[in-house]
């Protein structure tokens, strides 16, 4: 069994970069996985396709051998900062509490156990003293840690993250990484869209290199080589993108 198995995944959703015929798998056993690739390579699209936010044109995605729909309990997603409405009247504590919501009910208040757990998770990311702050009044790094706390609250086995280190200072980056490594040592898998090539070798042990198509996927030690990076970053994929879009428009009947 694998944590994640992607077979012949193709996405040509109109608003997102294209993905073409992607195949890779991530084995069990706790890995910190970076998805890297040049701008417009479809890193975020891949994450959104995995989660079913964007519908793939073809291909299958299996989490722990199951479809996303049945595996949701085991998956936590930390959204990109820009996707959150920071002005919403909600406090840090309430956001974390969300992670423990009972999925089977459409009403009902959180239990005492969950409320205590939410405080624990805030403590774990070093944010307990900010529990009652409205979320817009937190710094960038604190906002990121907050959503990590919500994901921890979900007690998932697989964590998906979109650029968690953007707008975060060096100290917070270290804090977040140590939480990640703790999760990995517990056998959890983290898949992170990442853009900073400099830190890949130091922080991650598995890597998926994208440039519209899959360039390479595997352990950092064997895959993260200058040749792979040249293949991903050295050439532009715009010709392929253009062709795929054309084909898509033709199929939809747009002249």
């Amino acid at each position, binding site marked *: 069994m694998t944590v994640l198995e992607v077979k012949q995944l193709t996405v040509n959703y109109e608003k997102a970069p294209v993905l073409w015929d992607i195949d890779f798998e991530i084995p069990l056993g706790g890995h910190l996985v970076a998805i890297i690739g040049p701008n417009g390579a479809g890193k975020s699209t891949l994450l959104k396709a995995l*989660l079913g*936010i964007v519908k793939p044109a073809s291909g299958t995605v299996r989490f722990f051998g199951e479809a996303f729909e049945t595996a*949701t309990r085991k*998956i936590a*997603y930390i*959204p990109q900062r820009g*996707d*959150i*409405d920071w002005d*919403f*009247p*909600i*406090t840090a504590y*309430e*956001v974390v*509490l*969300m992670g423990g*919501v*009972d*999925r089977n*009910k*459409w*009403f*009902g*208040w*959180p239990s005492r156990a969950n409320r205590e757990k939410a405080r624990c998770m805030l403590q774990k990311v070093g944010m307990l003293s900010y529990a009652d*702050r*409205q979320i817009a009044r937190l*710094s960038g790094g604190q906002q990121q840690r907050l959503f990590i706390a919500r994901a921890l609250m*979900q007690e998932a086995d697989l964590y998906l993250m979109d650029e968690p280190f953007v707008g975060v*200072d060096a*100290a917070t980056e270290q804090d977040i990484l140590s939480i990640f490594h703790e999760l990995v040592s517990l056998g959890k898998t983290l898949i992170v869209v990442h853009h900073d090539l400099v830190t890949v070798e130091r922080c991650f042990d598995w890597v998926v290199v994208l440039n519209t198509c899959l360039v390479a996927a595997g352990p950092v030690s064997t895959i993260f080589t200058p040749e792979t990076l040249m293949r991903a970053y050295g050439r532009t994929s715009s010709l392929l993108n253009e062709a795929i879009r054309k084909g898509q428009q033709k199929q939809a009947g747009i002249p």
Partner: protein
Amino acid sequence: MFDIVSYFTDPILRAPTIGCIAMAVSSALVGTLLVLQKRSLMGEALSHAAFPGVVLGVSIAAPFWPQESEGFGAILLLCAFLFSLLGIKMIDMLQKHCKVSSDAALCFILALFFGIGVLIASRLQVIQTAWYRQALIFLYGQAATMMDRYLPIYCLLTLFTVVILTVAYPQIQILLFDGGFAKRSKIKTRSIEVLLTLLVALAVVIGMRSMGAVLMAGMLIAPAVAARPWCSHLHSCLWLSSVFALISALTGNILSVEGTRWLLKWYPDWVFSLPTGPLILLVAAGSCFFSLLFAPKGGVISRLFKRFSYRQKILTENLLKAFWKQGREAAIEVKELQGMIPFCDWLLFRMRCLGWVRRKTGGRYSLSAEGWARACRIVRLHRLWEVYLVEYMSQGIDRVHRSAEELEHVMDEALEQELERLLGDLTADPHRQPIPTRQEGGR
């Protein structure tokens, strides 16, 4: 003077007052959810979409029931409710299947339904004038003619809304804040969404009797907008918007009754009575204005005040630096400073009150121990920034003074510590000027 209690006991006054309060509170509650979901236009579209339902309802019910009877009212409300649901359904379909953007879809449905309503109404005007008048009540609203027997349904609706919001509060919060998360978590988003939409449609339909189709949307939005800048919790938003709505409804009723009495007394030949609905809305709009002006975060006044105090802080800190340059014990004449820094007299007065400067003989001033420490801190920050800009950001030495001049004022404790951690213990800045130590800065 008027007697507030009479508005709740007088047989003529109590129905409009209590009815309006119930209507206002329930619409404020669902309106808050709409505003937070950034779907404020929804109320506008629904109330207009319900209008043809009212007109049709009148035509269906009038032949069978006497006007103002329960059966008549029920048929009317039911038709209005069905039409507003039909409106929502069509808006959904337009967005989903025809790829129309949501605001365009809302406006299209609003105009289409309202147009149809007006068309049928104008036909009614010719063939059945009495029916037409009934329909008009729902277009412009008429709170003053409400009767006791309507009250149970208004109060029940409000109670129903409150109960639903209380019971499903955590789920509603998740849905409003992060719909994607709600969906992935597999909480029953669909049923909550349907329920909320039903609540909005109900609030709109019930409110139309007192506010009218045209003004109804205002009652959904105004209390929510008024409450929004004061709150950092969803529940406090809901509470406060209901309070604003309650006050608006009560004040609107009082203004309408007392104002009409006053007009009768002083201008008896004007045949004019102040309508309740518009007055309620005006009071609600007034409370919006009040909030936008006075709210602690983001209010106009508080922003002006913050800008003023930041400006004052900059000037004060510049003044401290001017003192610092003259040395620990130097006394400076006010005249020397006046040329360099505006509002010098005021700043010196304020610093004297704070105990940062002492007055010496002959209009001279010198720094106190506290003032000296603060001045050292500013100079320290300024020079640390210069180091940072030169060493970390590779800026030219000749350019960094101006940047540091701005950055030194925005520091808080956390930023300062981070800067000190990065740079370590330094003694001189890029211009080889000494940097005051942390102890000298009074830390």
